C-alpha cells in the first residue's frame, strides 16, 4: 500500500469525496483541479495512478492524458459523466487504462484502483496473451499447470466446475459458446436445462472475478447465442 494516487476533477467536492474514500483504503492522495495542474503533479511527484476527469478548464482530461502518456506509463482511470460507447473508446484510445462513468459506485471505483495498481506494481507492463503456461487476459491470468485463475495477481478461489468453465473460456478468448456446449464439455453429458445451470455458475464466477459483477467486463452473455470470455 501507500501508493500515491492523483485525483483530478474540477469539482472540488468530488475530489474531496474520492480522496476520503481512497485514504480510507490506505492510499496517499494528491489533488488537482485541472489538466495543467495534473500534468505538473504527474510529472514532478511520484504518482502511481491517476484518476482523471474529462471536462476541465485550462486543459481537459483527455489531452492531459495524452501529454502524461508521453512521459509516464502509470495507469490512468478516466472519470466522466459521458457514458457513451464512443466516449469510452475515445478515452481508452487516448491512453487511459480504464473508463468509469459518473455516477459511480465508490466501492467499485476503489476496487478498480486496487486492481490497476496491483497490475502495475506487481505485474509491470505486460502484454496480454498466452506465454507458455499462462493465459493472460486483462486482469485475469490463468495458469494451466496450477489450474488457478489469478485476478490482479491474486488467486481466485474457484470450485472445480468453475475452474473448468474458466479454463474453457480463457483458452478460447472471444469465442461464444452456447450453454449446451459449455455444459457438454464441462459436465461431459447432455444438457436438458443448460441455461439455468451454466448461468448460476457464471454468476458465481463473476462475483469472484469481476470488479462489478452486475456489469461484467470479462464473462459476458451474448444474448441469444451463448457466453464468452471477452478478450481484453
Amino acid at each position, binding site marked *: 500500500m501507500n501508493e500515491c494516487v492523483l485525483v483530478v476533477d474540477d469539482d472540488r467536492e468530488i475530489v474531496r469525496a474520492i480522496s476520503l*474514500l481512497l485514504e480510507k483504503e490506505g492510499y496517499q492522495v494528491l489533488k488537482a483541479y485541472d489538466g495543467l495542474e495534473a500534468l505538473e503533479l504527474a510529472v514532478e511527484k511520484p504518482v502511481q495512478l491517476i484518476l482523471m476527469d474529462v471536462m476541465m478548464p485550462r486543459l481537459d482530461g483527455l489531452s492531459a492524458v495524452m501529454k502524461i502518456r508521453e512521459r509516464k506509463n502509470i495507469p490512468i482511470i478516466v472519470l466522466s459523466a459521458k457514458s457513451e460507447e464512443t466516449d469510452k473508446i475515445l478515452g481508452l484510445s487516448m491512453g487511459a487504462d480504464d473508463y468509469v462513468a459518473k455516477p459511480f459506485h465508490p466501492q467499485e471505483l476503489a476496487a478498480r484502483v486496487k486492481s490497476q495498481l496491483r497490475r502495475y506494481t506487481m505485474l509491470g507492463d505486460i502484454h496480454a496473451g498466452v506465454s507458455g503456461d499462462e493465459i493472460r487476459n486483462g486482469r485475469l491470468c490463468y495458469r494451466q499447470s496450477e489450474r488457478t485463475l489469478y485476478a490482479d495477481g491474486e488467486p481466485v478461489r474457484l470450485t472445480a466446475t468453475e475452474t473448468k468453465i474458466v479454463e474453457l473460456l480463457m483458452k478460447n478468448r472471444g469465442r461464444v459458446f452456447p450453454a449446451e456446449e459449455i455444459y457438454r464439455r464441462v459436465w461431459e453429458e447432455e444438457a436438458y436445462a443448460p441455461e439455468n445451470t451454466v448461468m448460476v455458475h457464471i454468476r458465481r464466477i463473476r462475483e469472484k472475478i469481476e470488479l462489478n459483477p452486475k456489469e461484467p467486463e470479462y464473462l459476458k452473455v451474448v444474448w441469444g447465442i451463448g457466453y464468452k470470455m471477452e478478450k481484453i
Partner: protein
Amino acid sequence: MLAFFLGMTLLIYNFISMLTLISNTDLRQSDYQKTQEFATRISNRLEDLIGIGLKGKDWVRYQYSYSDSDYAYDSYATDTVTEDSGTVISEWWTSGYSGSMSYEEAATEAGEYSTADFNAYLEELKADQNLRYAVFKDGKLTYTNIDGLDAENASIGMDFAAWIPAEEYNFQLTYNKDGDGKVAMEKDGQTVDVYGDGIYREKSRWAVPGYQNFTAGDEAKAIAVYLAAAKEPRLYVVSGTNGTNRYGGVLYRLKESLTAERQQLVRSKAGLAAALLLLLLAWALRKPRRAGREKITGWTGKIWLEVKLLFFLIIPICLILTFVTDFLSWSGFSLDRFVYYGVQDYLPQARDYLAFHLDGFFSFWLLSFWPLYLGVTDLRRNKGQQKSIIGRLRRSIRTRDLKQPVQKKLVKWQRRSLIPFVGFFYAGKVRRLAEDLGALTEQIRVIRNGDIGNALSLPEDSDLKAAAEDLNGIQEGMEAAIRERTKSERMKVELVANVSHDIKTPLTSIVSYVDILKQEENLPEDVKDYIRVLGEKSERLSAMVQDVFEVSKAASGELKVKPEKLDFAKLLRQTLADMAEPIEQSGLSMRVSIPEKPVEITADGQRMYRVFQNLLQNALKYSLTGSRVYLTLTEKDGKATAVMKNTSATELGDGIDFTERFVRGDKSRTDGGSGLGLSIAKSFTEACGGSFRVENDADLFTAVVSFGVTDNRKEA
C-alpha cells in the same frame, strides 16, 4: 310504386270515359223515357207518321232514299218563322230542297220506290210493339199497329186505354186530337208540358209541330196521330224477308243503349273511385314510392340521354302526329282554307273529332303518359347527370372549364389534330407534350421514393416547364425540411445528453458522500437509517438519469442497434437464467413454454435482453404475491411471438397507455421504477425491427413482443 302506377292508369282511363259519358246528359236519366234521345225519337216518329198519313209511300220514299250528294226532305211546315226563333229552324225544316230543286224535281231525282218496300217498312213499324200508333186521316183510321183497332171502332178522340194498358204503356201522345194541330202528351198519368212558352228553340225538348214558330202546315191538319210508348221496351221476334229476326225497335235499342251506357258510367265511376283509392294508397306509401322512383331513375340515369329522348318524347309525339294526320284526312284539310280562314274554321270540326275519338284518345293518353312521367322524373332526379353521347363529345372538346393553359392547349390540339393534313402537326405537338408529361411523372415518382437530389429540367419551350420548376421547388423544400428535422432531432438528443450530463456531476458527489457517511462509525441507528435512505434515493436518481438518456436516444432514432441473428428461445432462457435469483426471491412461480428448437430472429441481443429483463422485473415487482407469471414463445406464419402475462397486485386502470413515458400502473408507487421501463422497452424493440405492445384486461397484464422469423434460405 305499383299502386301509383295502377292508380294513375285507372285514373286516366276512367277520367276519359267519365268525360265521354258525362257529356251525354241523357245518362243521368234512369228512365229512358226522360232522355232527350227519347224525345227526339218520338218527335221523329211523329213526323214519320204524319208524313205517312199525308203522303203514304211517297213520304217514305223521300225519307229513306238518298241521292249522291243531297237528300231530299219533305217539309210540311210553313215558312213562317219568327225572328226570335233563330235561323236554325228554317234551315232544318225548309231545307228539303237541296239547292234550287223543287219538291217534285227532288222526288223524281230520288227515284222509284216500290210498294213492296213500303209494305216492308210498314211491317217494320207495326212490328215494333214498343211504340204503338194509330194514324187517322180525316178522322178515319189509316194505319195502326194496335191489334183489334179498325176503322169502325177507332177515332182520335177515343179512350185507348182498353187497347193500350196504361201500366205497360205509360207514355201517350196525341196529335191534332182537337183539330188544333197541337200535340198532347201524358206520362204516368201526368200531363207533360210540351211547348213551354210556345217558342221552339234549338234547346226545346220536343221537336213537334204546335209551337208558334213551328207548325205542321195546313195540309197536316187532316191528320191525327196517337202514339204510346212502352214503359219497358222488349225484344220482339219478327219473321221478315230475311228470315226470323230478333227485333227491338228504336225504343228498345234506345233503352238498351241507355242501360249499357249507364252501366258503363257506373263502371267508370267505380273505376274512378278505385283509381282515387289507389292514388290515396300511393300517397300513403309515398316513401316506398320515392324509393321506387329512386330505383327507376337510377336505371334511367344510366341510359344515354339520346336514347331517352327518343323513347320518351318521340313516342308521344308520334301518337299525336297519328291523330293529327288522321284528323286532317278525316276533316278534309286543305292548306289554302287553313291559311285563309285560320284555325277558327277547324275548331268545330276538331271538337267533333275529339268527341268521336275520345275513347281512342284514352289509349293515347295512357301510352304517352307513362313515357312522359318517366321522362319528367328522370329529368328531375338526374339533372345534370345525364349520360349522353353528345354530351361526352362536347365535354371532350370543351376547353372553357379547363383553367390551366396546358390543359387548354392540349384539348385544342386534340381537336385540331382531327382535321386532315393540318392534324399531323398538332398530333406531333401532343406527342411532345406526352413526353414531357412522362418526364414529370417520372420525377414525381423518383421524389416519392426518396431521392430528392436531382432536379428536373425541361426545355424552355415545354409547356410543362412551369410545372417542372414547381416540382423542383418542392424538392428543395423537402430537402430543407428534412435537414431541419434531422438537425432539430440531433439538437434534442444533444440537449438531453447535456442536461443529463449536468445532472450526473452533482449526483456523483451525492453518491460519494453518502458512501463516506455509510462508512462513518459511531452513528446513532436512526442516522444510519437516514443515510441508507439517502443511498437508495440517490441510486434511483442515477438509474433514472440513465433511463431518460436512453429513452431520448431511442425515441429520436439515435440509438445504435447491432442487429444480428440470434435464437429467440435461447435469449429468453438466458434472461430467465440470469434473473433466476430475483425470481426465486419474489415468491412467484414461472410458467414457461419455450420451444426446444431454435427460433431465429434478427435483433440486437443486448437490447432485447434489456427489454425482457425490464418486463420480467416489472412482473416480479408488480405481481400479486404468490401468483404465476406466464411466458410463452410461439412461431406462426413466419412470426415469432413472446407473450408474458402476470396478475397485477394493484388495480390497473382502463385505457392507459403504459408504454408512454412516465406512465406507471400504480401512480402512487414511489419505490423503484421510473415509469420509463416500458417506454424504453418499446423503443428498443421497435429499433430492432420488432413489435411491442402491452394490454391489460382487468388484472391480467400482457406484454407481447414479436419479430419476423429470419428465413435461412433467403440468406443464401
